[in-house]
């Protein structure tokens, strides 16, 4: 009666996830038994875990194309690339957040444990080969993030944000699950590869397929924060502690890209013409709403939240073509965008101190006088987010636009370019504050340990370098799909 098809899984193929899980448990236990008030052991172990994860992922999964755990796990270059992105972004997030969390009395061991579990969930999502593992990965990520948003439990704003995030997120998960159950009902399998094969030879069951597809698209759009499923984004970005916002704005976006690609981009590629229009609609709405509302924001976190829609619009545009080049453009865009935004949040965290958030845009006034280095970093970040030629943001936008035009959506490309021009206004406003305005009173000083400042500076400069030499990263992204 034992299933004859079962082969003992090759655990080595899933080593990154196994490593992360094991180390997350180690962090948990170590933190439980350590008396360090700053949770130093947990912090260092976490960073070692993430760095180790990067090394393991590169060495065991890049260039591989295999499945294990009876097809529920896929080890391939795309997964490896996204995982590396997630791990790096999480590393940055933890590196920037220690002082901030300590000052607010929310530096708990749980921050590291839940953070690691969220990262694990993202990694599971991006290398899922089966609807079950895909869904569980998304849930693991979301659950950890809900709890992280509420980690400052004495703050009513954070609790409210967590509540909104949780309720809407649960709704989205329900949608996703409902759509998946449709697919399962039609095809009788949970394996994504088999679903793709079934989607290729549709007959009269097409109708049911589309029904499931709509629900899944809604669920994925929620996780992306694409308009019109974006209601949670501004409140969560604003209400959550900044380091958690960083995690949601960066790593979880990369994971959402993975979710889309595994489930729809690759899983339902034969249905391209059906979902293409949905994605176009999401992208257009995201571009419109993102740019117009971001213009009037005075809070940096809220501004970044609304401008996120703009970038989500670009990422979605890359999917529209349904070609490897388009997907590579999206992945490139998502990775570079997340990397840039991580540094932006890093600057906000750098300027924050006890009892002061530094998340108002006027807090940046006169930053050049106080710290030329970080004013320069802000300059790089903002022109890159704007997409001025010569920056990495420009290459990302260019790649996406190219794929959209090739797919025949010239009007969409034009709309996106207009959006980018509008975006220039609110991004470059920050640069103006840094360089040309005087601070009112003292103005917040950059505070933070040497390590923090060094990593942040490196992050900013790497954005610059990536803009000057984008070729390698572009090649890597393309290689992940070919």
């Amino acid at each position, binding site marked *: 009666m*034992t299933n004859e098809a079962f082969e*003992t899984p090759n655990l080595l193929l899933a080593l990154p996830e196994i490593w992360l*899980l094991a180390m997350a448990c180690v962090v948990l*236990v170590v933190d439980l*038994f350590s008396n360090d008030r700053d949770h130093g052991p947990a912090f260092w172990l976490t960073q070692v875990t993430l760095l180790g994860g990067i090394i393991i992922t590169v060495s065991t999964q890049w260039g591989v194309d295999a499945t294990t755990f009876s097809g529920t796990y896929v080890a391939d270059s795309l997964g490896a690339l996204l995982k590396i992105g997630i791990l790096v972004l999480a590393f940055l997030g933890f590196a920037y957040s220690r002082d901030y969390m300590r000052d607010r009395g929310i530096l708990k061991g749980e921050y590291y444990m839940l953070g690691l579990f969220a990262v694990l969930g993202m990694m599971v999502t991006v290398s899922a080969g089966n609807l079950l593992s895909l869904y569980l990965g998304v849930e693991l990520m979301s659950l950890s993030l809900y709890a992280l948003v509420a980690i400052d439990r004495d703050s009513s704003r954070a609790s409210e944000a967590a509540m909104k995030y949780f309720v809407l997120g649960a709704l989205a998960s329900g949608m996703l699950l409902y759509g998946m159950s449709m697919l399962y009902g039609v095809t009788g399998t949970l394996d994504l590869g088999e679903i793709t094969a079934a989607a290729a030879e549709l007959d009269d069951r097409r109708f049911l397929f589309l029904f499931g597809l709509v629900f899944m698209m809604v669920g994925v759009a929620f996780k992306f924060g694409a308009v019109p499923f974006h209601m949670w984004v501004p409140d969560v970005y604003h209400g959550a502690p900044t380091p958690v916002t960083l995690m949601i704005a960066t790593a979880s976006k990369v994971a959402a890209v993975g979710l889309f690609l595994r489930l729809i981009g690759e899983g339902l590629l034969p249905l391209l013409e059906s979902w293409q229009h949905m994605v176009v609609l999401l992208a257009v709405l995201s571009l419109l709403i993102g740019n117009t509302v971001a213009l009037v924001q005075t809070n940096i976190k809220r501004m970044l939240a609304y401008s996120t829609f703009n970038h989500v619009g670009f990422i979605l545009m890359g999917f529209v073509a349904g070609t490897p080049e388009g997907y590579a453009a999206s992945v490139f865009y998502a990775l570079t965008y997340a990397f840039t935004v991580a540094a932006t949040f890093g600057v906000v965290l750098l300027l924050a101190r006890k009892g002061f958030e530094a998340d108002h845009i006027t807090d940046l006034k006169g930053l050049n006088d106080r710290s030329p280095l970080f004013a320069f970093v802000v300059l790089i970040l903002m022109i890159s987010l704007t997409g001025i030629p010569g920056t990495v943001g420009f290459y990302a936008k260019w790649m996406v636009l190219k794929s959209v035009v090739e797919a025949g959506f010239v009007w969409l490309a034009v709309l996106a370019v207009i959006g980018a021009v509008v975006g220039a206004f609110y991004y470059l406003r920050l640069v103006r504050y840094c360089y040309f305005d005087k601070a009112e009173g003292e103005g917040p000083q950059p505070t933070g340990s040497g390590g923090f400042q060094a990593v942040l500076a490196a992050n900013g400069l790497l954005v610059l370098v990536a803009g000057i030499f984008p070729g390698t990263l572009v090649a890597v992204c393309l290689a992940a799909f070919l």
Partner: protein
Amino acid sequence: MLENYLPILLFIIVGLGVGVVLLAAGFILGPRKPSEEKLSPYECGFEAFEDSRMRFDVRYYLVAILFIIFDLEIAFLFPWAIVLDEIGLFGFASMGVFLAILLIGFLYEWKKGALEWE
């Protein structure tokens, strides 16, 4: 298989029926002489003050949440216990990992003092 469940369904209905019958008998046979004193909630002879539906220690909720988690764990253990001799060492190891992960959770509860009542 289904015909085995019919008696169960009937048994549940009969079980409810016994309750209804007894309760009805009590209403029919027993006297009904309500008075304000008799109907007021018991409070050691005091007049009732404040609503009895008070807020409880959050610990009760915590116990309920932890109960759900462990109940699920038991639900996962049931099929495993039945097929233990068929799934061999691999099945044994997979449950070992499952339990180990949750035991870490249990250790966490313990150390954090979630299991302590004062």
